């Protein structure tokens, strides 16, 4: 900020030749600062970038480091105060069957939701990008983004009403003669709700990727004798893959970190990593173990993002 202000305030730095040390013609301090900054690009960059960089380092990374350090401490079981003695016990506890089950369930659900959303988003994105009229595309875009206007909690509660016993879904199934269904408070319910809630985050990047594919490539594929399915498989899918992978980062990480949907629509076997973290923070006051658990999604996401980069998700989106 400082540098921009100085530049605007001083004379236009149009003649570098005049800039002998100490000899700036118009003489004012702001002009001198301006000139000095103009001559030293690295200083200008440093001044412009340091506030956001400091924010990133102090607020974002430092808090992560603090959390990581906490994970190696324990808590006095009686007074709930932190005991600053180094131990790996928290991490060792992670590798017991209880927590491995929960971690496995969380990853499994995140993967399932991602696949579901990708399968739903691909034809939808294709229609939006390549078939629909301009007006139709606008309408569809609005329809996709419309749910994001409502609060997350409201949408999850809407699904409870739909899925619970005697709810809308059950009523509909009874009407069409399939009999009552009762999938409220199950992992199936959780899968449906997650897939619904994160779908827009998949559709938008997939649409973006599909829209950028030139028609000529598809025509060329046809001219070379490929049938429709072959064109989809060999041209469309590979070119849209970075978009799918980019979308999957959202759907996967959002599901991985969620704990409200399991709390609200999950059943008796629906604890996620986030729920256990919440219990350890809120009920047990065991910050160190919660911190150790919180490292798990971070590690998973690091590997996921490395994989995504290998698939080219960050190149063209």
């Amino acid at each position, binding site marked *: 900020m400082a540098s921009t202000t100085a530049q605007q305030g001083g004379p236009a730095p149009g003649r570098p030749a005049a800039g002998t040390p100490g000899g700036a013609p118009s003489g004012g301090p702001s002009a001198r600062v301006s000139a000095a900054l103009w001559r030293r690009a690295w200083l200008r960059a440093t001044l412009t970038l340091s506030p956001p960089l400091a924010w990133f380092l102090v607020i974002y990374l430092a808090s992560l480091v603090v959390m990581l350090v906490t994970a190696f401490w324990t808590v006095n079981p*009686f*007074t709930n105060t932190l005991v600053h003695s180094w131990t790996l016990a928290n991490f060792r506890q992670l590798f017991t069957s209880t927590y491995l089950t929960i971690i496995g369930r969380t990853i499994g659900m995140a993967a399932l939701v991602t696949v579901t959303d990708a399968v739903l988003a691909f034809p939808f994105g294709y229609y939006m990008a390549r078939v629909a009229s301009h007006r139709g595309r606008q309408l569809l875009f609005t329809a996709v983004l419309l749910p994001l206007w409502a609060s997350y909690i409201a949408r999850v509660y809407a699904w409870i009403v739909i899925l619970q016993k*005697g709810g809308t879904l059950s009523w509909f199934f009874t009407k069409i003669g399939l009999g009552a269904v*009762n999938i409220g408070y199950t992992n199936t319910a959780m899968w449906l709700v997650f897939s619904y809630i994160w779908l827009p985050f998949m559709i938008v990047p997939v649409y973006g990727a599909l829209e950028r594919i030139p028609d000529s490539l598809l025509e060329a594929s046809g001219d070379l004798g490929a049938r429709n399915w072959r064109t989809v498989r060999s041209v469309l899918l590979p070119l849209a893959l970075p978009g799918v992978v980019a979308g999957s980062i959202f759907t996967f990480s959002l599901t991985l970190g969620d704990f409200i949907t399991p709390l609200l629509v999950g059943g*008796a076997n629906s604890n996620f990593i986030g729920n256990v973290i*919440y219990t350890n923070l809120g009920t047990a006051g*065991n910050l160190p173990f919660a911190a150790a658990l919180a490292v798990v999604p971070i590690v998973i996401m690091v590997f996921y993002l490395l994989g995504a980069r290998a698939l080219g998700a960050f190149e063209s989106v």
Partner: protein
Amino acid sequence: MSRWTRGGALLAAASAAVLIAGCGSSGGPASSSSGGGGATAGLTPPQAGTAVPSSVGKTEGHLNLIAWEGYAQPQWVKPFQQATGCQVSTKYAGSSSEMVSLMANGGGGQYDLVSASGDADLRLIYGGDVKPININLIPSWKQFHPFLQSPPFNTIGGKHYGVSYEFGPNVLLYSKKTFPTAPTTWGVLYDKKYSGQITVPDNPIQIADAALYLSRTKPSLGITDPYELTQPQFTAAVNLLKQEHPLIKKYWALASQEISLFQSGTTVVGAAWPYQTNTLVAAGAKVADTIPSQGATGWADTWMLATKAPDPNCAYKWMQWVTTPKIQAQQAVYFGETPANQLACPIMNTIQKGSCAAYHANAPESYFQTIKFWKTPLAQCGNGKNDCVPFQQWVTAWTQIVG
């Protein structure tokens, strides 16, 4: 325990609480407070020797509370401020542990009072974070139900570490369609007959409910207090809950969840608070609640005075104020719980017809004797051997049961 759930009335507020609690503060490491660690903590509270005032002095003009959401409502805070000149600031806590963390180091010289539940009381007392009060400065105390005048969870060695406030039992809620007559045993929660139609709270203290049931049905275990369990007793209770797990439809975290589970008929029997029963009955649902023959667990809250309370006189004024029959009644009806003051009953009925009986505020003493009130499970459990299972292991075991 997760008490924000007990309010239940405001879904949005509750959801916000989930989010906020999720990123709750670490409470500051501070210096590990006096009192020492679990198993080695002495049996004498560190503040036991602190002198108590003989009268309430000049008020300080302000008061800082740590309270459950709904415990500092304008309808009784505003008149208090006018009457005493003490400006009330309230910090709402999401759980008992958050309260303990906030109260670390005697309230840090910042907080005066905390509305702690029984499961936090002993941690605060033995942590030296709260100090004894002169109970005679709170005249309404004499009007309390006898069992709440000097209960073991806030009175130790004849010293009162606060004044009891409100309480409630954890009841057995059932559908009248499934049970034409009230079930007489908690055993229905462990009965395969109701598989997939049972709901219990998602709360580690639920282990005490299983222990209470076992204390009557398996006397050979020798359980006398559901919060003081030796390893074999604890294991038996946890195993019972593990057997129950496949029968559970949902471990509820919000009172509203249980209400909707019963309203839709998804579940037919479960552990609940009177609040759920009353809300369901008011909505026309065919349900009722009961305390089975084994008795019940329950919660009881206490206003406790911080060791480093900066405004002790305002704090005493507050304890006097909120124990009067009128405020006791307002609080009970607002929150859906039972007042400690017996004279609150008729006032409850003027606020909401029939609420006194609905919340058992006029029940005979024998009714209250069936309730085993929450207290912190500690390693040292009265047998002098320090071989009981402390609370942290309860939490770990609960994750295993639910996970």
